[in-house]
C-alpha cells in the first residue's frame, strides 16, 4: 500500500531523512518511532506529498506521489501532529467541507458523520465554531475527517496526543477495524506501549536513518519495545 524508496530529504546542509526505505502492506498498522527531530514528521509529510524531497520516491497503491498526487491524496488521509483546522467553520461545516472535497456521497457522509461524531461524543458540539474547541476536540474532529472518505491509507502524526483515555481507546479500535477491512495505517508515536500492543510492524529512526524495522516480534525479541528503543537510541528520548 505504501512504499518508501530511498527517501532523502535535506534542509540546507542538514539531512533530515537519509536514504529511508520502508514498505507497508494492506492490512498493516505500522508504527514509526524515534526521538524528537529524528525525521518522522518529515517522512510522513513527504508521504502525503505536502513536502518535497531530494531523492527517492514514494508510492501509494502503486502510484508515485510525485507523478500522480491527485490519486494518492484521494485514497489517503492525513492527521498532522497539531490539528490546526479552520477555526471560522463549525465542526459540522468542516466535516461537510472535507466530504465535499473527497466527493463522499450525500447518504454516506450523513451516516458517517453521525456515527463517528457519536463514537467520540462530539455530536452536540458539531454546531460550535472550531475556535471554541479544545485541543482534544480538534483532534477528534481531525480523526473523524480522516475517516469520512474511507481512505485506503491513513497517515497520522502523534494521533494520541490530546485525546482522553476513552477517545484513545476508540481510536485504537478504529485503527484495528480499518486494517481488518484491508486498509493500512502508518503513524508516528512516542507512546511505546500503544505501538507495542497495536502495531503489526515498527520502524525506529534516528537522525534521519532507519535503525531497525520489521514485525513487532522481530524488532522487540524478548525485550519490551521501550527497552529496545532506549538501547538503540542510547537513551536520547526526551
Amino acid at each position, binding site marked *: 500500500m505504501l512504499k518508501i524508496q530511498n527517501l532523502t530529504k535535506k534542509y540546507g546542509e542538514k539531512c533530515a531523512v537519509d536514504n529511508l526505505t520502508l514498505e507497508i502492506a494492506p492490512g498493516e498498522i505500522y508504527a514509526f518511532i524515534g526521538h524528537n527531530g529524528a525525521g518522522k514528521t518529515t517522512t510522513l509529510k513527504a508521504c502525503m*506529498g505536502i513536502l*518535497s524531497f531530494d531523492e527517492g520516491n514514494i508510492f501509494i497503491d502503486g502510484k508515485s506521489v510525485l507523478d500522480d498526487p491527485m490519486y494518492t491524496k484521494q485514497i489517503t488521509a492525513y492527521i498532522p501532529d497539531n490539528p490546526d483546522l479552520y477555526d*471560522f467553520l463549525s465542526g459540522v461545516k468542516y466535516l461537510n467541507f472535507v466530504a465535499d*472535497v473527497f*466527493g463522499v456521497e450525500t447518504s454516506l*457522509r450523513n451516516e458517517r458523520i453521525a456515527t463517528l461524531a457519536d463514537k467520540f461524543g462530539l455530536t452536540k458540539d*458539531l454546531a460550535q465554531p472550531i475556535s471554541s474547541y479544545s485541543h482534544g476536540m480538534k483532534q477528534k474532529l481531525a480523526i473523524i475527517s480522516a475517516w469520512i472518505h474511507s481512505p485506503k491509507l491513513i497517515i497520522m502524526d502523534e494521533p494520541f496526543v490530546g485525546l482522553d483515555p476513552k477517545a484513545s481507546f476508540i481510536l485504537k479500535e478504529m485503527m484495528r477495524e480499518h486494517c481488518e477491512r484491508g486498509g493500512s495505517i502508518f503513524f508516528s508515536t512516542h507512546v511505546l506501549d500503544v505501538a507495542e500492543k497495536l502495531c503489526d510492524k515498527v520502524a525506529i529512526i534516528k537522525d534521519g536513518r532507519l535503525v531497525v524495522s520489521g514485525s513487532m516480534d522481530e524488532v522487540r525479541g524478548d525485550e519490551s519495545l521501550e527497552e529496545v528503543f532506549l538501547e538503540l537510541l542510547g537513551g536520547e528520548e526526551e
Partner: protein
Amino acid sequence: MIGRLIAIRLRSLVTAVGGKRKDGTVSRPSVWKLLLLGVLFLWLGATFVGLFTLLAIGMGMTMLPLGQGDMFYGLFVIISFSLVFILSIFETKSELFECRDNELLLSMPIKPSHIVVSRIATVLIYNYVETATVMVPAIAVFAVFDGSPLGIVGGILAFLMLPLFTTALSSGVGYIVAEIAKRIKNKTLITTLLSLAFFVAYFFVYTGLIGDAGAMEETEDSLAITIPYIPAIGFIGSVATNVLGMLVLAALSVGTAYVAYRIISERYFAITRAESVVARREYKAKRLVRRSALVALTGKELRRFFSSSVYILNAGMGVIFTVVITALAVINSTDFAYAIEALGMPAEATSVVFVLGLILSSGMTMISASALSLEGNSLWIPKSMPLSAKTVLLSKLAPHLIVSVPVTLICSVILMIAGKATPLEIPFYIITPVLTNVMFALFGLVMNVAFPKFELINDAQAVKSSAPVFLAMIFDIIWTLAASGIGILLSMFGMPLLAHTVLLLLTLLLTALLALILFIPCARKYDRIGV
C-alpha cells in the same frame, strides 16, 4: 522586557516580506526582495511627500505672507491626524487584542502593560512615518515662507507629538470596540458596524473640513461667516506657533497616551481572555448536501472573509467606496457636467470619468492579496487533499469577485442611468469596471502566491502589513493613475469613445496575461509550497 517584546514584533514585520522555500522551510527575505520593496516604499513615500509638498506650497504662499501661520499649521495638523487615524484605526484593535501569541505571553511573568506597549509600538512606528509625509513638507514650507524659529520648533514638536495622540485615540477606539464585542453575540458583524460607524463619522467631519479648506484660499473675507469653526482651526494650529499651544499639545498627547495605556493595560487580560458569551447551541442533525470541491472551497473562503472584521475592514473597503463614489457622482452629476465642460472635454466624457471613478474604488478592494497567506497553519488541509492548484487558486480568487463584482455592476448601471449613457457607451460602463475588478483580484493573488507568508501573528499581518497587499496596492494606484491619464487626455482631445476602447483593451490584455501567470507559473509555485 519591553525592548525585547518590541524587537520580536519588529522582527516579525521584517519576516513578513519573507516566504517559504521550495522545501517548506521559512526563508529570510532576499536582498533583492528587500531592495525592490524598499524602492517601491520610497516611490510611494516620495509620491505622497510630493503631493503634500505641493499642497503646502499652495497654502503656504497664500496664508503665510498674511501671517496666518496658525491656520496653515491647523489645517496640516488636521490632515495629518485624519490620515493617520484612518490608516491605523482598523489595525490597532487587531494588533492589541488579537495576536496569536497572547496566551503564550500572558502565561509568562510579563506585565500586561509591557505587552500593550510592545503591541502598540508597531502601530506607533507606522504612524510616525505617515505623519512625516504630511508634516515634514508643512514644516519645510513654513520655514521657507515664514521662517519664524518658534513656528519651526512648534512644527517639529507637533510632528513628534501627533502620532502619540493619534495612536492613543485609535487604541481607545479599538479598546471600546473590543469591550463591546466581548459582550455581544455576533462579534464580527458588530465590530465591523462599529468600526464603520467611526469611519463614517470621521469621513463626514473630514470631507467637511477639506471642502472648507478648499474654499479658504478663494473666499478669505467671508471665512468667518461661512465657516463657523475657522477659529477652531486657528486654535489647533496654535499648537505649533506659540509656547502655550505647544505645551497644551504636549500635555494632551502625553496625557491621552498615558490614560489609554493605563486603561488598556488594566483591562488587557480581561479582554484577551474573555470567554465567549455565545450560548452553546446543541447540534441538530441536518441532511448535508454534496457540493463540488470548488463550491466547497469557495464557500469556505467566503466564510473566512465574512467571519473576520479585520479582513472585511482592511480588504473590503473598496466595495463601500464604490457605493460612496456612485452616490456622490449621482448627487453631484450637475457639478460633474460643469467640471467636465470647464476642462474642455465634451459632454460624452462624463462616461469616461464615471468609469474611472469605479476603477479608482475597485483598487481599494484587496481580498485576494492575502487569501493564500491566511491559510496560515491550516495550509496542510488543502495541500493534503486531492485538489489541483488551479481549483485552490480559483477558490482564492472567487470571494474577491463575489464581493466586489455585483456591487460594481449595480453601481455601473446606476451611473449609466445618471450619465445618460448612449448605446455605444453601455458596454464600456458594464465591462470595463467589472474586468478591472477581475484584473485587480488576479494581480493580488499572483502577488500572494509569489510572496506568501504563513507564519502570522494575527490576521492583520497578512491583510494589512504583508508584501503582497503592499504590492497590490501600488499596482492598483499605478493602474488607476495611468487609466486616468489615458482617459482624461483622450477625452480632452474629444475622443471619449477611443478612451473607453483603449482602457477596455488594455484591461482585457492585462487581465488575460495575469490569468495566464496565475494558472501556469503560480499554480506550479503553489504545488511546490511545502507545509
